[in-house]
C-alpha cells in the first residue's frame, strides 16, 4: 500500500488548515486595526470639538455646525459588538478597544451635555446599559430597537455601556444616575427606564425624540435646500 499518498494528503490538508488559521488571524488583526483607526479618529474628533467648545466663550452657538460631534461613534460601537461576538479576535485587543470606546462615549456625552446647557438645545441622547456577563435576551432586542431609532433619527446619540465592565468612569456614571442592575436600562433626560421598550413606546414617552427630524425629513430638506438658496 502506498503510504506516501497518505503523507502527501496529510501535508496538503495541514497546509490548508495552516493557511486558514493564518488568514483568519491576519484578517482579525486587520479588523482590530480598523477599529483602532476609527477610535483614533473619534478621539481626534472629540479633541477638536472640545477645543471648539472651549473657544465658544469667545464666539456664539450659531458657529456650531451639524458636524460638531463625531459621527463615527455609532459605527464604532457596531464594529466592537461584532468583534465581541465573533471567535477569532484577540480578546485582550477587543477588551482594550472596548475600554477606550466607553471612555470616548463618556467624553462625547459630557461634551454633548455641556453643549445643550450652553446653547439651550434640547438634549437628544440616550444612555443605554446592557449586560455581557449574563444572557440577556431583552438587551439584544433593546439593541435592535436603538439601532432602528438611530437609523430613523440621525441626530440621536445613543451611548451604550456594558453594565458589568470594570471601568472607574463607568462606575461613576452608574452611581450618578443610580442605575440598578435590572437590565436593559435606559437613561433618557435623567430618567431611568428599566426593561425592554419598543420603538413605539420610546417615541411616545420621550419628548426629545419628537423634536428630532427623521431621516426622511432630513433627506427631503437636503434635497430642497439648494433651490431655496
Amino acid at each position, binding site marked *: 500500500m502506498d503510504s506516501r*499518498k497518505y503523507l502527501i494528503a496529510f501535508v496538503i490538508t495541514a497546509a*490548508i488548515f495552516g493557511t*486558514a488559521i493564518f488568514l483568519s488571524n491576519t484578517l482579525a488583526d486587520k479588523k482590530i486595526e*480598523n477599529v483602532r483607526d476609527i477610535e483614533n479618529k473619534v478621539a481626534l474628533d472629540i479633541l477638536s470639538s472640545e477645543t471648539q467648545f472651549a473657544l465658544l466663550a469667545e464666539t456664539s452657538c450659531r458657529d456650531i455646525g451639524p458636524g460638531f460631534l463625531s459621527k463615527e461613534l455609532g459605527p464604532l460601537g457596531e464594529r466592537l459588538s461584532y468583534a465581541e461576538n465573533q471567535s477569532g479576535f484577540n480578546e485582550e485587543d477587543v477588551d482594550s478597544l472596548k475600554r477606550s470606546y466607553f471612555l470616548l462615549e463618556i467624553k462625547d456625552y459630557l461634551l454633548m451635555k455641556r453643549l445643550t446647557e450652553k446653547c439651550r438645545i434640547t438634549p437628544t441622547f440616550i444612555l443605554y446599559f446592557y449586560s455581557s456577563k449574563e444572557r440577556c435576551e431583552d438587551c*439584544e432586542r433593546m439593541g*435592535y430597537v436603538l439601532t432602528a431609532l438611530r*437609523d430613523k433619527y440621525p441626530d440621536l446619540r445613543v451611548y451604550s455601556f456594558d453594565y458589568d465592565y470594570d471601568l472607574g468612569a463607568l462606575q461613576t456614571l452608574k452611581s450618578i444616575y443610580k442605575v440598578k442592575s435590572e437590565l436593559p436600562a435606559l437613561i433618557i433626560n435623567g430618567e431611568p427606564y428599566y426593561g425592554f421598550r419598543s420603538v413605539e413606546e420610546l417615541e411616545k414617552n420621550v419628548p426629545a425624540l419628537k423634536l428630532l427630524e427623521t431621516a426622511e425629513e432630513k433627506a427631503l430638506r437636503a434635497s430642497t435646500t439648494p433651490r431655496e438658496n
Partner: protein
Amino acid sequence: MAEPQTFVLYSSLFISLFFEVFLLITYLEVRGDIKRDNEMIAKGPSRYPSTTVIVPCFNEEKTVEATIKSILDLDYPKDKLKLVLVDDGSIDGTLSVLNKFKNHPQINITTKENGGKHSAVNLGISMADSELISCLDADSFVTPDTLRNMVPYFDDESIMAVTPSIKVFEPENILQSMQKNEYRWGIFLRRMLSSMGALYVTPGPFSVFRSKIFKELGGFKYAHLTEDMEMALRLQKNRYRIVNSHNAHVYTVTPKRLRGLIKQRVRWTYGFINNIIDYRDLIFNKRYGHIGLFILPLAIFSIFYTPFLAGNLLAKTGSDAWKTVDRIMTAGINGDFSMPSFDWYFINTGVVSLLAVGTLALTLVIIYLSIKLADGKFRLDRSVFYYLAFYSLIVPLWLTKAVFDTIFRRKVTWR
C-alpha cells in the same frame, strides 16, 4: 481550542478535508487508468462469456416489465444471455407480469414463497450454468451497452466482480434531482475506490460476478437487508478483486418522498454498521490495504462526524436566521428596503468559516469531475444546487436513526 466540542469540530473538518484531498490525489494518479478503460471499452469485448441475469422480484408489478425489457435489449449475443426471473412470493400482480415472458427463449421464470431477496437470488444462482452471473433489482434498468462495457474487465483472470455506475432514472422532483447529483458523486467515488481496491459494495443493480465465486464462497446471505454489501465484504475478506466500470450505466428509480428516502438510507446505513460489526477483523488490518486501514474506518467515522458537522451548520444558520427574524419583529424593517452597503469588516473570517469555504471549494472540484466522469462532459444543472443546499441537512436524519436502531436493535424493514 481546549473545549472538547471545538476539538471534535476541528478534527471532523480535518478528516473530511483530508478525504477530499485524498480523493483528488487518487484522481490525479488514476487519470491514465480511466483513459485506458475508455479505450478498452471503445474496442468492445474480445469475447462474450455466457451470462445469466437474475431478477428477484417482490411486489414490483409497476417496474419489472421495463426492467426485463431493458435486459432483453442488451447489445449482447442472444445465445450467451439468459434471464432468470424469480418471484419471491409477491402478493401483487408481479407474477402475471412475469408470465407475459414465459415463452421467451432466453427467459426462465420461477416462483417461491417469500424468503427475502438473498433467497430469491440464490435460487436464481442455483438455476444458472453460465460463466458470469449478474443480478438486477426490479426497480432498475440497464442501457444496451451496459454489459458490453463490463465484460472486458473479466479478461483479467484476477477480477471476480465488476460493479456498474448507477444513475437516477428520470428525476421528477427536487428530492430525486438532489439524488441525481449524489449518485454522480457516487460514480466518482466508486471509480476511485476501485483503483484503490477498496470497493465495499457490489450494488444490487447489475453487479456482475464470476459464477465460480458462489461455488467457492457460497451464495448471498441474509445480511441486515444489505446483501450486496455483505457479498462485497466477503469478497474483500477473501482477497477477491472487485473493480468498477464507470462506463457501464444502470438507471435506478429513487425514492420520491423524504420518508421513503430516509427509510432506504436507514436500511443502508444500518446494514453498513451491522455488516462492519460482522466483518470487524478487516478494520485496521494491514493485510487488506486501503479498505482496511482507511476507507472502512473513515466510513464508520463519517457516520458520527457528518451529523456533528451538519448539526453545527444547522445551529449556526438557524441562530442567524432567528436573530434576523427577531430583529425585524422587534424593530421593524428599517427605512427603505435597500441592502446595507458592503463592508468586508462584517464578513465572517473565523477559522471554521474559512475551512468551510475551502471544503466547499474542493467539493465543487469533485462535483465537476464527477459530472465529467458520469456524463462524459460537464454541464451544470439544478441538481448540483439542490445537492449543495439540502443534502448535508438531511443526511444526519438517517445516520442518527441507523445508529439508534443499531444500539437498540430495532427491526429495519425493506419498505
